[in-house]
Structure formats: C-alpha cells, structure tokens
C-alpha cells in the first residue's frame, strides 16, 4: 500500500534529476506498477470485505501516520492510476523534445499523483490537509507550465482559490481537534453525535465550503475554466479527470463519516449542495453551449458534470447513493480525460483552439472524432456507458425517496450535454474551407484518446464489480 505513494515520488524525483523533458519511460513504467498495485489492493479489499490498514514506519497515531484503504479509497485509487497511465503515454507523444511547456511535466505529474494516492489512503484529517496542499501546489505548477502571461494569471487565480479552500479546511481541522482532541477519522466517527457542540457545526461548515471551493462547485467555479481551458491538453485532462475528484472524495468521506450525525440532525443541510449542483449543471451546460473555444467548452462541461456529484447528497442516508456518486466520478473521469485528449489532437492538427476550426476534421482524424463521440455518449448518459449507469442509479435512488425534481435535473442535464457534444460533432462533419491544411498527428495521440473514451463506455458493462467494491466500508 505504501508503494502507491512512494513509487510516484520516486519516479518524479528521478525525472526531475535527469533533466528537462525527460522521464517519460520512468513515468510509464512507474505508472504500470502503480496500476497493478491499485488493482491488487482493490482485489484484497473487495475479496476480504474489510478495510486494510498500514502504520507508516511502525509508528501508530497520534505521532505516526496511519494509512487505511476501504472500498471507496480503493476505487478512487484504481480510477487515478487507470486515467494517469494512458495520459502518460499520450503526454509522451504530445510534448516535443525541448518544448518549454513540457519541461517539468513529468516531475510535477508524479508529485501530483503521489499526492492524490496519499490523499485517498490517509486516515486522519490533518494528513489529508497536507496531501490536499501537495495536490494543489503540483496542479498549480502544471497549469503555469506554459509560462505565458495568460497561463501564469490562470495559475495564480487557481493558487489563491486552492489556498483559500485548504485554509478553510485547516481551520475546520483545528476546531475538530480543539473539540475532540483527535483527528483520526475512525476515532472521530463514533464520538460525534447529533448533540455535538456548536464548534463541530462550524468546523463542518468551514470544511464543506473549503472543499466545495476546491471542487469548483457553482458558484465557486470561477477559477476552473481559465485554469483547465488554458493548460496544455494532458494537464487539462489530469486536472479535470482527477484533481477535482480528490476534494469531492473528501466531502463524501466526511459526509458519510464523522459529519453524518450532524446531517441527520438537520436534513435541510444536505439540500444546499444539491441545489448548488443543480445550478452548476444548468449554468455550466449553458456556458458550454455558448463557448467558442473548444477547450473552454470542455472545461465548462466539467463545471456541469461536477454538479451531478453533489446531487447525491440528499440521498446519502442509503449506501446506493455513494455508488451512484463514485460511478459518476469514474464516468466523468474517463470521459473528460478522453475529451481533453481528443481536443489536444484537434488543436495540434488544426493549429487553433476554436469549435469553428474543426470543419473537415472527420476525414483526417476519424479515430479522434470517434473518441470524442464516445466520450460525449458517456456525458449524455446513453446506454451502455458508465454515465448511463451513474444516472440510472441516481434516478432510481431519487425516485425511491420521492425526489422527482432531481430526476428532472438529471434528464435535463443529459439533454444539455447532448446539445454541446453534437455542436462539436456537427462542426467536424462540415466541409472544410478549400485552403485549410491539417498537420500530421502521431498515431499514439489518437489511439490513447480512443482508449480512454472506450473505457468510459465499456465500464458500464463492468459496473457491478465496482459497486461491490465501493460497498466495503471502513
């Protein structure tokens, strides 16, 4: 389990030492190992039906660091490695030798993945704070990698948002420690009851707001489109598919863990995130429909898709809602990585980042366009994609409780997604103006886009295993 954290740290450091732009094979090798480790861990957790624990260096809490993996953590680890491995292959072909934007991609990506893995494995609130910062700082570094004024400005905006978010989270941790004298999630969970002191409510609220800021839930999304839309394609894919999921995972972890009694005591609280999620879906989709730049369209679509993740909060009294949430995280993770990666191919081929510039690409880049369509299918939620499964689970749970308006929101979101996906596809099928020429693009780029998109669709057929895994609780 500890190797899931050490391995990326190791290859990232080696990549940094070996110089600018190097480390591709180190990263691909390391990520292959991590993928195996993650599946192995998921197998152990899934088969044993209990959470796995590890004390780092043999020191127990409170002075040492405890790691723990249950079904939710194992699932997120599998998602992280499975998205990162194809992205590493893609990035290897995407950055040309000596390109400024790719100079520090490998070390930063390694540190980012190490931070993500550590976050999913952490068993105490403070360690989670440290890993949140690791993830945030590495992500800001990746956004700034282009080095242009626009990227640096987007990176700074992102940095302040993420620092503010983790600052609020840290204050929450401080209040929790002041109230209970522990930060271990497993110790804390039985201690907190619905009669918890006012301090706990404040702590919960601060942490929730901080994490929503980091997950870019509407209206805290302002930093996301420039950061994700302006970065190079492999970076956008990493950020949109994985980084925002980390803080969502944390909200989920806290909400079904220590803060569950507070939510049960005041059920209306759970409607706050759901209402914001609804607005995120509507507003994000609307902006995506209007966007002129291709990557901005995909970035706004991320804002919309993140909204679905928060729709599950009023339903969390049952375990099936968690499964719907994780399924949506998987569906969006793979599909959004596929979309950004496909967009990267289009931009490389046409030399411009506009939807209008896509005309005629269907003849020259059929695989990429097919990948874009498949990912779009997942976003819309057509069967048999994982997006369909996620929406199905969500609708089923919502109908069980009689929350029919959530169903309406989910269906409307699917339709709006169809509008912006088809807007891109239609443009690609149009006749190209006579004088356009498309640059040649390495085949690896096209096929990695295809693999990511295909996984997002085919995952729907293997959803049962995933849901069983998520059912294993700490």
């Amino acid at each position, binding site marked *: 389990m500890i190797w899931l954290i050490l391995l990326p740290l190791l290859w990232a450091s080696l990549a940094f030492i070996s110089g600018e732009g190097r480390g591709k094979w180190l990263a691909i090798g390391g990520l292959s190992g991590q993928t195996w480790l993650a599946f192995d861990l998921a197998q152990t957790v899934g088969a044993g039906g209990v959470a796995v624990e590890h004390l780092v260096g043999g020191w127990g809490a409170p*002075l040492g660091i405890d790691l723990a993996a249950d079904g939710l953590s194992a699932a997120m680890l599998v998602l992280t490695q499975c998205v990162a491995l194809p992205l590493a292959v893609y990035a290897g072909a995407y950055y040309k030798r000596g390109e400024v934007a790719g100079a520090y991609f490998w070390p930063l990506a390694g540190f980012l993945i190490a931070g993500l893995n550590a976050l999913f494995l952490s068993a105490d609130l403070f360690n989670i704070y440290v890993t949140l*910062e690791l993830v945030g*700082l590495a992500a800001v570094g990746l956004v700034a990698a282009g080095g242009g004024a626009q990227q640096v400005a987007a990176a700074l905006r992102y*940095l302040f948002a993420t620092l*503010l978010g983790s*600052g609020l989270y*840290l*204050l929450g941790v*401080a209040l929790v420690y002041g109230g209970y004298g522990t930060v271990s999630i497993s110790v804390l969970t039985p201690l907190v009851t619905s009669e918890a002191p006012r301090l706990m409510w404040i702590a919960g609220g601060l942490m929730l707001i901080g994490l929503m800021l980091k997950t870019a839930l509407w209206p805290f999304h302002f930093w996301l489109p420039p950061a994700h839309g302006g970065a190079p394609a492999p970076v956008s894919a990493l950020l949109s598919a994985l980084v925002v999921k980390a803080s969502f995972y944390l909200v989920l972890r806290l909400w079904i863990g220590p803060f569950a009694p507070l939510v049960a005591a005041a059920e209306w609280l759970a409607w706050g995130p759901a209402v914001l999620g609804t607005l995120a879906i509507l507003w994000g989709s609307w902006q995506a429909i209007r966007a002129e730049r291709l990557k901005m369209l995909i970035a706004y679509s991320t804002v919309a898709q993140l909204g679905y993740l928060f729709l599950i909060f009023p339903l969390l009294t049952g375990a099936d809602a968690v499964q719907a949430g994780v399924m949506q995280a998987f569906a969006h993770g793979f599909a959004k990585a596929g979309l950004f990666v496909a967009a990267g191919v289009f931009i490389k081929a046409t030399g411009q980042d506009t939807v209008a510039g896509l005309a005629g690409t269907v003849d020259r880049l059929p695989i990429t366009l097919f990948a874009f369509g498949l990912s779009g299918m997942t976003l819309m939620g057509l069967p048999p994609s994982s997006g369909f499964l996620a929406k199905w689970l969500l609708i089923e749970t919502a109908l069980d409780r009689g929350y029919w308006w959530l169903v309406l929101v989910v269906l409307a979101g699917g339709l709006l997604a169809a509008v912006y996906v088809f807007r891109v596809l239609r443009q690609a099928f149009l006749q190209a103006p006579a004088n356009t020429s498309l640059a040649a693009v390495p085949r690896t780029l096209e096929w990695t886009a295809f693999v990511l998109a295909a996984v997002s669709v085919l995952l729907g057929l293997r959803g049962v295993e995933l849901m069983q895994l998520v059912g294993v609780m700490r």
Partner: protein
Amino acid sequence: MSSGLLFACVGAILFAMGVAGVVLIAHLLRRILAFNVMGSGAFLILVGLAQRYDFSDPVPQAMVLTGIVVAVAATALALALVRRLHALTGKLELPTDGT
C-alpha cells in the same frame, strides 16, 4: 478567559482578516501576505484550543510545524508566479477580463 482561549480568539480574528485580504485585495504581494496572516490565524487556533490541560499537547505543535512548512512552500510558489507575471506584463495585479 484562559490564555488558550485568548490565543484562539486572536487566531479567529487574524483568520477572518486574512480571508478578507485574500478575497478583496487586488495587489498580489499583499494578497500573499494576507494568505500568510490567514494561515497564522489557523495555527493559533489549533495550538490555543488544544491547551486545555496543564501540560502542553505535542500533537498540535507537530501539526503546526508541518503546516508552516506547507505555507512556506505555497508562499514560495506564489512569489515565483508573481515574479513571472511581473516580468511578462509589468503589473502586480491579475488581469480583470477573466481569461
């Protein structure tokens, strides 16, 4: 009021000032300073609230030490980015057009 609670109250005020600074101030250097004020506030609360007994609890101090390292790293990154922005645009403020 015990000294621990006093620390915590001062921490809360500092934190609120810091948050206001990060959100409202346009000048980037002052914003970074505001972030540091915010962090210090959180650390004061962490140490202050934990001092309810006669002996001092080592765990929050270890946490604050870790937190300070994180804050220094974040400040360094922010300063590097601000310097880069200043070199490119000659300004110490973010462009307002949202791009």
